[in-house]
């Protein structure tokens, strides 16, 4: 594994819904093993861009490369194989409410790896332990707190040992301690497994503490204003809007 090598590349990507452009002409690269933040004000199109990156929304223009392979130009079967290398944590967790936490994690293991019930449950228990939820295997999503649901959703996203984890607003709605624990979890997962982690967020503290690289999306111009280490962008960016965002508007 070569950390820092280009892993995901956005080339002239324009995303939107129908005729409505949300973001246009995006060019940036996410390195292998990076923790990468897609940041910007609310409503700028961060989650829309993530939907395009994970194969849920075809970009209006441009190409998204995984390694050397353009995702949206691949045939549907190949796209399915590529998608198995992503793990996605959705903003609200999106755990299946009729299944226990262990069943939520075991489902992809059984579907894609044909594991039997017992080994699938063992792996599910391990994944729950990794996110600090050992012993909660038989709980249902409605029986645990919001922060625990987020961690369980990360455990499900990691079920198939993905190359890339996409986390949509992982810290949103969490108390500061849960948020810090989640940040630590993300860093340790990257350090231990070398997973590339893409975080969609506007939580400054998390972005500045754990992200190696970032892109800043703007609402008014509907395009990216900056790309780079978020700490450097905060201190040295020429763009006033980027600096204001990263310093919470304080000079």
């Amino acid at each position: 594994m070569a950390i820092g090598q280009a892993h995901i590349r956005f080339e002239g990507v324009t995303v939107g819904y129908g005729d409505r452009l949300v973001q246009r002409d995006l060019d940036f690269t996410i390195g292998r093993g990076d923790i990468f933040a897609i940041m910007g004000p609310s409503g700028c199109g961060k989650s829309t861009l993530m939907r395009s990156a994970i194969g849920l929304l075809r970009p209006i223009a441009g190409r998204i490369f995984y390694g050397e392979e353009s995702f949206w130009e691949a045939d549907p079967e190949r796209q399915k194989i590529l998608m198995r290398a992503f793990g996605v944590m959705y903003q609200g967790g999106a755990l299946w409410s009729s299944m226990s936490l262990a069943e939520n994690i075991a489902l992809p293991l059984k579907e894609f790896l044909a594991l039997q019930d017992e080994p699938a449950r063992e792996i599910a228990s391990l994944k729950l332990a990794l996110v600090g939820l050992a012993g909660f295997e038989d709980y249902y999503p409605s029986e645990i707190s919001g922060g625990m649901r987020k961690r369980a959703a990360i455990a499900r996203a990691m079920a198939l040992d993905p190359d890339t984890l996409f986390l949509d607003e992982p810290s949103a709605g969490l108390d500061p301690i849960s948020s810090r624990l989640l940040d630590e979890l993300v860093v340790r997962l990257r350090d231990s497994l070398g997973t590339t982690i893409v975080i969609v967020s506007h939580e400054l503290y998390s972005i500045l503490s754990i992200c190696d690289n970032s892109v800043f999306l703007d609402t008014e111009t509907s395009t990216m204003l900056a790309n780079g280490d978020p700490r450097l962008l905060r201190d040295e960016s020429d763009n006033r809007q980027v600096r204001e965002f990263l310093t919470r508007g304080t000079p």
Partner: protein
Amino acid sequence: MSAAQLRLSHPGAGVLRVQVSGSWTLASGLPSTREAEQAIDGGGALSRLCFDAGNLETWDSSLVNVIYKLARHSRSVGVPLDLSGLPEGLRGLLDLAEAVAPHREVQDHRPDTPFLADVGSEAIEFFRSVADILRFVGGVSVSLGRMLRGRAHYRASDLFLIVQQVGAQALPIVSLISVLVGLILAFVGAVQLEQFGADIFIANLVGLGMVRDMGAMMTAIIMAGRTGAAYAAELGTMTVNEEIDALRTMGISPIDFLVVPRILALVLMMPILTLYADLMGILGGALVGVTLFDIGIYEYFRQTRSAIDLFDVFGGLFKGLVYGAIVAVSGCLRGMECGRSSAAVGTATTSAVVTSIVFIVIACAMLTVAYDIMDI
């Protein structure tokens, strides 16, 4: 790539070494750890469990799982662990997995209860649900009173929209089902009546059947599946999204704002839909009588008119009104009782339809007996 292997050896007195080699992937399944666990248990004099990953090629969660299990087992029997032979990343994951102690309440979480206790709980639950229904109906009655006095919070535009949804938009499906029911009644009756040369009485059978019972019953069943289920799903989703809590915290009664307009809309529309279904059913019967049994169209309708009177029609319409109330109350009740998950919305919807149909049939039986006693 060679296959994943797990070998045991004793490099020194009291030391058990677990050697992991080859390529470990989830897709190849999980190797058994039983032999290693037995070796840990069996060696009473074990002073250390160590690992050797010198010939390890690739690894994923399958190896982490094996090492995690062995580490936990070893700790549970008090054998010290030496993880230095493992890759750094894997050690990091083990630290992460063991950073938080397992949740202790898991044993008490789903206690096994004896059969009789289960029966008792179910019985208590049944009486509680009856009490809930009565409380809900009581609440709706109070809200209805408030509405009539002009003191309820609701939006008239919502009421008109719901009236349109449950009334006009239901006409196509009510037409289709009613015409088909009329056709079926006519066919079933004709087979018997034809033997006596009494084909003309098809009109009586279809007319009375539709007007007294089938028109209201079929419309109610359609509305249970269409509107009752929609009410439960809509209110259930609002419960999940905390929209109903938001109304309560603003001091707006969800019964006033959401439930009463829905019940009122369906209760108002059901008699009209029932009347429409009666006419469609008679039309379906006429289609069979006129085209297959050579009954004149004028004759058919004259016979129908002579067979039914206003009491039959109003009796049927009253049944429609009662069924409408049942469907609306069941749908709203189940929606308001809904839990806070998407699965609960499905359960509420199913329960609304089942409750409606059960109570429609019970109400039908009771009203039929009552009409008979009153000689209607």
